């Protein structure tokens, strides 16, 4: 798909700005703090995720205002208009999302604009908590599997209910009875999510290992291991397990088993845990490779081309990898790069649109 244009109103340091993109390479340049990343952030919000910087909506509203609005025109066969906006009353934000004028729920809006975002924070997927990895992989699966997204949201809701009941301070028999209402549905969703993840990680590894070798100019034998205590369980087996863990749950006031405890661990050279030996540069290359694997899988399963968004990552790569990166994106997809150091533009030896930004204005 092609992102034709976006409109930003009171979005970060933009007051009212339309930006038109070319259908091949777009390079957003400008000094530090001029507003390059803000544009990528707006596109990430329009593609239905939270801000890829994990910012709160109220921090995105231009200072001194009480709402923001952004809009994208997408071409995929015909044109569609995507809108996302948010009004704040000081404490909370009310968010609205529309496609072609139709008001949609967060889950119906999610991922309809297919993007792959490369950002400096990607390294955290490998380097930080299991929660970040679950969030990442759940997001990728949800891009091509609506039912997964729906089940995941229901699972999280029931998890919240379970934990709320466990913390309620009611007497034990009452708690047990109230939990029993949810155990069945909880097990069904848990098993579904576990199976989907485990199936997904196999095809992800196929892509990832190959791309990582290509990018590192080495044979690494690298792949993610899906770590879950509930692999290959049937719903009834899981149900039994959760009923048995009741004592532990009561003592800890929280749910001790389920896919919310899972992890995805990157191994290299057979059985070495990547994050325990890899250099910063190796982690960067691995995280870039993850994003390429994501691109391959989501494009294949959606039958659509992703819009490639690259925030800063490019400047962190060495010369050969910069060339490789351009080769793997610029010729096949519409891409939008943010580049602070204009010397990097020389790597784009092809037709490109340069968008120059200064203090929230396109020059």
């Amino acid at each position: 798909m092609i992102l034709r244009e976006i409109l930003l109103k009171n979005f970060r340091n933009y007051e009212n700005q339309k930006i038109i993109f070319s259908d091949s390479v777009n390079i957003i340049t400008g000094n530090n703090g001029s507003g390059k990343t803000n544009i990528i952030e707006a596109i990430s919000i329009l593609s239905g995720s939270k801000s890829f910087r994990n910012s709160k909506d109220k921090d995105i509203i231009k200072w001194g205002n009480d709402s923001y609005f952004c809009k994208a025109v997408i071409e995929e066969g015909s044109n569609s208009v995507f809108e996302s906006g948010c009004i704040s009353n000081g404490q909370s934000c009310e968010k609205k999302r529309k496609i072609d004028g139709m008001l949609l729920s967060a889950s119906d809006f999610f991922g309809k604009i297919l993007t792959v975002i490369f950002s400096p924070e990607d390294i955290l997927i490998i380097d930080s908590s299991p929660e970040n990895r679950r969030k990442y992989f759940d997001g990728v699966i949800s891009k091509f599997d609506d039912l997964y997204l729906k089940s995941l949201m229901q699972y999280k809701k029931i998890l919240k209910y379970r934990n709320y009941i466990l913390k309620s301070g009611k007497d034990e028999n009452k708690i047990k009875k109230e939990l029993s209402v949810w155990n069945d549905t909880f097990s069904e969703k848990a098993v579904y999510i576990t199976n989907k993840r485990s199936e997904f990680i196999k095809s992800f590894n196929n892509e990832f290992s190959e791309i990582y070798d290509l990018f590192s100019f080495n044979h690494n034998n690298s792949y993610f291991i899906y770590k879950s205590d509930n692999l290959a369980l049937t719903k009834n087996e899981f149900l039994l397990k959760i009923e048995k863990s009741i004592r532990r749950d009561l003592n800890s006031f929280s749910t001790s088993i389920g896919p919310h405890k899972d992890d995805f661990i990157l191994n290299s050279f057979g059985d070495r845990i990547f994050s325990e030996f890899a250099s910063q540069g190796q982690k960067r290359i691995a995280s870039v490779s993850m994003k390429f694997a994501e691109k391959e899988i989501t494009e294949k399963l959606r039958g659509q081309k992703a819009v490639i968004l690259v925030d800063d990552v490019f400047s962190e790569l060495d010369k050969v990898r910069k060339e490789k990166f351009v080769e793997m994106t610029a010729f096949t997809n519409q891409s939008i790069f943010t580049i602070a150091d204009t010397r990097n533009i020389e790597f784009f030896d092809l037709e490109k649109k340069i968008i120059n930004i200064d203090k929230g204005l396109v020059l």
Partner: protein
Amino acid sequence: MVSKYLEALIAEFSKIPGMGQKSAARAAFYILKQKDSDVKRFASALIDIKEKIRECSVCGGISDADICSICSDHSRDSSVICVVEDEKDILTIEKTRIFRGVYHVLKGVISPLDGIGPDDLRINELYDKCKTGKVREIILATNPTLEGDATSLYLTHKLKEMNIRVMRISRGLPVGGELDFADTATIARSFDERIEVF
């Protein structure tokens, strides 16, 4: 402020669900222009629904007498009970004229964040009816939300233990939608397509 009486009535009207300030003002001016006798009739209708309407001691729905007109209608099949979340669901289903059994109102749905568990609903009353041995079939018509489904599933397990045929309607209803918003034809269809649970 032009009139504190007018202001007071607008304030009351605007508490009604779905009624904003504008429509509340319009309604208040409408009342102001009516004949005395019409307004008196309107006022007594308001007082009557509060003073005269009671809860049916059998189904929990609204009633003018101790037992409602549905529960006391002998042409209806009291061995088939349709379980609904609240009183107004009965009106919605009655409009379809397709269901000839009786109702049981749960008075809500299991909702942990609101502190509502099975013990806070009219579930024991339902078991009591089933224990009489006169109930052949239960049709669960809770809304197809996560909470409505969980409530139905919970009831299904218990009722199956009592050897009662349990059916669920929801398929014809829009996902995440509520009975209240479904049109009459959709509800009628979902009664036709009710499926046996398990």
